[in-house]
């Protein structure tokens, strides 16, 4: 079975991203409602290699990364009906699934302890709350906002999200006080936050 990639590199960024977000939402909906394997395969093709790269960047070896990717994508299949488009993009949803699975795995291996990080997602998701409704333009806007962050702010964001470093570890690595790391994170978040708020 040959399946066209969900998107090509040429339109991955910029104008392609919005229609991409819509495509993913449609594919996930097909998985949820019709158990559509072709739709799932398209999602797998797009996200699989990215998730593997993400896991390896955070220190997993190829075997563990592959394993976590499979677990994450099976969770996508099983939980597809729980995706709620008002709460963010498909990419964000898959990111949180992968993040949580990875933390769960580390915890079981005893290297790190983390209480079920997705409790709050299951326990108290009330759509009527002051939950932000994130538009389909989210992915694009965030990517662009990340691109224009000052490099010292972008650096701490990348270290926290991609390199799995705590604030103290970042402070040690950069040889700056913990307070400096925190203030860079705050500034970065506020800039990104403004972008997301503007989309409401």
């Amino acid at each position, binding site marked *: 079975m040959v399946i066209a990639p969900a998107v090509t590199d040429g339109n991955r960024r910029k104008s392609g991203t919005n229609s991409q977000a819509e495509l993913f939402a449609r594919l996930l909906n097909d998985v949820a409602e019709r158990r559509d394997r072709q739709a799932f395969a398209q999602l797998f093709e797009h996200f699989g290699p990215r998730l593997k*790269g993400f896991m*390896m960047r955070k220190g997993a070896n190829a075997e563990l990364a592959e394993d976590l990717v499979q677990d994450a994508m099976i969770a996508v299949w099983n939980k597809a009906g729980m995706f709620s488009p008002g709460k963010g993009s498909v990419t964000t949803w898959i990111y949180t699934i992968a993040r949580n699975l990875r933390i769960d795995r580390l915890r079981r291996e005893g290297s790190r302890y983390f209480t079920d990080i997705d*409790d709050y997602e299951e326990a108290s998701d009330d759509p009527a709350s002051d*939950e932000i409704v*994130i538009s389909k333009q989210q992915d694009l806007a965030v990517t662009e906002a990340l691109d224009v962050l000052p490099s010292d702010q972008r650096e701490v964001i990348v270290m926290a*999200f991609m390199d799995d470093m*705590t604030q103290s570890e970042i402070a040690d690595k950069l040889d700056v006080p913990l307070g400096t790391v925190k203030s860079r994170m*705050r500034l970065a978040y506020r800039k990104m936050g403004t972008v997301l708020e503007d989309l409401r």
Partner: protein
Amino acid sequence: MKTDFHLDDATVVAYAAGSLSNCLSVVAASHIAMCDHCRARVRRAEAVGAALLETGERQQLQPGALSSVFERIDGSDWVQPKSDRKAFRDPDPSLPLPVSRLLGQKLDDVPWKTAAPGVGIHVIEKNPDGSSLYMLKVRPGHKLPDHGHAGQEMTLILRGAYRDQIGRFARGDVADLDEDIEHQPVIEEGEDCICLIATEAPARFKGLVPRLLQPIVGI
């Protein structure tokens, strides 16, 4: 909205990144379970993770990866990733779920140890790296010693309320304080104040627990 009673922006980022240290993340998750505002902030920060996932490096999967996923789906050998989440089936409704699960018992059944007159302590976890997670139960009207915060420290109010220089902290509020802040909480009259506290760094002389123990052990 005044942010003093919510998570610091930097904490929101670290939590969304999944790189907040363990004890702190328990307190953060518990506050988020009680706070719509911070839940929305975390979701916003998670979009940053998504953008980085999207544009990050890709690694080719093993040939046949998709087929083995389909095989596992068909074999329905997929089970909810095993965790202790089902281990505690009778949560305390007055507690956020993450605390309830961790505690494994009702708040009223916690075996408090006396840390100082008027102050009970229940240590949930103490790690070799110096981080710890514990609860304090403080008598109404009690004044805690003036103390600072070594490294990162987060306090979530589970019951009762206290006042300090920043304001009044009641159930669901979190004090996500910078290390340079010193304060002296005074418990409100009426009921005990019960807090969940995580600290990242080993307690230093000016930290709350050393200050509490000072009269007892003479440190």
